């Protein structure tokens, strides 16, 4: 559908202004909410107290990730699929008033005769490239693949030789080695100081780094635990759920893993488990990882129950966020405003984020379709929306 399509079910708004590029104070925030049945934009007022819903966009389509390009403040990319149709990527340059489909969505190379090739089930993760590379984007897919676009998301090609590298294919494993929604390549991170320095993570398949623009990749799994009984030396057994780089200190990364919460301070290559200081009955299992935009000692997680069969719900049915303000030495429970019991929330790895305001606003969406926020860095929580479809991803765009 290379055509431009109007979205009849979308409430019309004027095109938004440029996004915050870190040089001026933002005037308001827009939340980009991707769900199993479409996408919504929530426009906040200056005080972040009221939110106006714009949507649904793509009603009925699975939207895995919806991301605004911070370099131009107007280009939106949406990673889409449906239960029946193949995956694609939609692009808008008028903040969702019209969408154009990618001419060449991410796709694996066709297998040679006699070989079994892979097919992209969906694009799971979208990351704008370096600020000095306008129009360049990266995409992570399920099953695990890494792709790059150099024309603003219109055409996509495999990035580096990763997708067909025999060692990486072994680490990626099969369909059975991934999440219930399929194995995923995610957490594509670009060093703000160097466009050739990238990280990505795979569930499963570990965390990886390149310092030469993708010509060579190196696993970075030292210090990360694996499920009991498995060999931590085997990269394939590592399951990072979400990795984030601190904007204020690009040498510091935080990670929520299947087996704990970690911090990495470069140039070290050894992850330090910082989740062991969480209360024992809560544990340090979860999916999202959120970092403060200006303070590398501050980060937040949303614990999930990882016992026995992995319920992936709020521990004991009592939702909470935990925050650290000292790099993981101690954690504080942040649940003021949440239900006190019988609330069995699940929050996916892309469904929690922060804005750039002061104090920082925190946001997350549940698989039950609830959208929550804190205007006070987690000290109090309020509901923005209920009754949305299953929320897959939440991003916060700071608008000038």
């Amino acid at each position: 559908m290379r055509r431009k399509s109007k979205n009849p079910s979308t409430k019309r708004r004027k095109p938004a202004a440029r996004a915050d590029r870190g040089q001026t104070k933002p005037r308001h925030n827009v939340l980009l909410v991707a769900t199993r049945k479409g996408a919504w934009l929530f426009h906040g007022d200056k005080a972040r107290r009221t939110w106006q819903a714009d949507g649904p966009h793509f009603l009925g389509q699975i939207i895995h990730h919806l991301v605004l390009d911070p370099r131009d403040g107007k280009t939106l990319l949406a990673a889409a699929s449906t239960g029946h149709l193949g995956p694609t990527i939609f692009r808008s340059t008028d903040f969702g008033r019209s969408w154009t489909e990618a001419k060449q969505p991410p796709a694996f190379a066709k297998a040679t005769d006699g070989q079994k090739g892979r097919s992209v089930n969906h694009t799971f993760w979208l990351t704008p490239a370096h600020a000095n590379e306008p129009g360049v984007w990266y995409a992570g897919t399920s099953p695990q693949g890494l792709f790059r676009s150099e024309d603003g998301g219109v055409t996509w090609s495999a990035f580096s030789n990763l997708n067909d590298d025999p060692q990486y294919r072994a680490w990626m494993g099969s369909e059975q080695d991934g999440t219930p929604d399929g194995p995923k390549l995610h957490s594509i991170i670009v060093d703000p100081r160097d466009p050739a320095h990238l990280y990505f993570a795979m569930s499963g398949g570990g965390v990886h780094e390149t310092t030469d623009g993708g010509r060579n990749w190196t696993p970075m799994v030292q210090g990360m635990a694996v499920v009991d009984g498995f060999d931590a030396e085997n990269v394939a057994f590592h399951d990072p759920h979400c990795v984030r780089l601190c904007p204020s200190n690009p040498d510091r990364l935080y990670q929520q893993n299947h087996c704990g919460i970690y911090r990495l301070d470069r140039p070290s290559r050894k992850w330090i488990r910082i989740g062991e200081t969480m209360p024992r009955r809560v544990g340090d299992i979860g999916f999202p990882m959120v970092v403060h935009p200006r303070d590398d000692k501050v980060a937040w997680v949303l614990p999930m129950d990882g016992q026995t069969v992995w319920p992936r719900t709020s521990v004991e049915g009592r939702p909470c966020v935990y925050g650290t303000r000292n790099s993981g030495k101690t954690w504080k429970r942040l649940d003021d405003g949440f239900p006190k019991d019988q609330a069995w929330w699940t929050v996916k790895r892309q469904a929690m984020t922060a804005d750039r305001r002061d104090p920082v606003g925190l946001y997350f969406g549940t698989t039950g379709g609830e959208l929550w926020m804190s205007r006070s860095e987690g000290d109090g929580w309020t509901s923005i929306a209920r009754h949305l479809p299953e929320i897959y991803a939440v991003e916060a765009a700071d608008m000038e």
Partner: protein
Amino acid sequence: MKVLIASPLHSYVNAREVDAAGTTLREMLADLDRRYPGIRFRMVDEQDLLRKHMRFFVNGEQVFDVEHALRPTDEVQIVQALSGG
């Protein structure tokens, strides 16, 4: 030949039924994609496999291979499987 288009793909063709040409299902899908860019990849993956929830019928008989031969008088139906939630 006449090709019945599944409703999830109507946004590409703006019609319930279109005309297409080709001596195989592969050629017919290529013809559709020329005129309605992007439509093929939603139905057929990069390994030329029909997507698992899409169904192709030729004169009422289900076919599974993109090399299936077609005649100009054939009627092709593209439908989505009765699955989902």
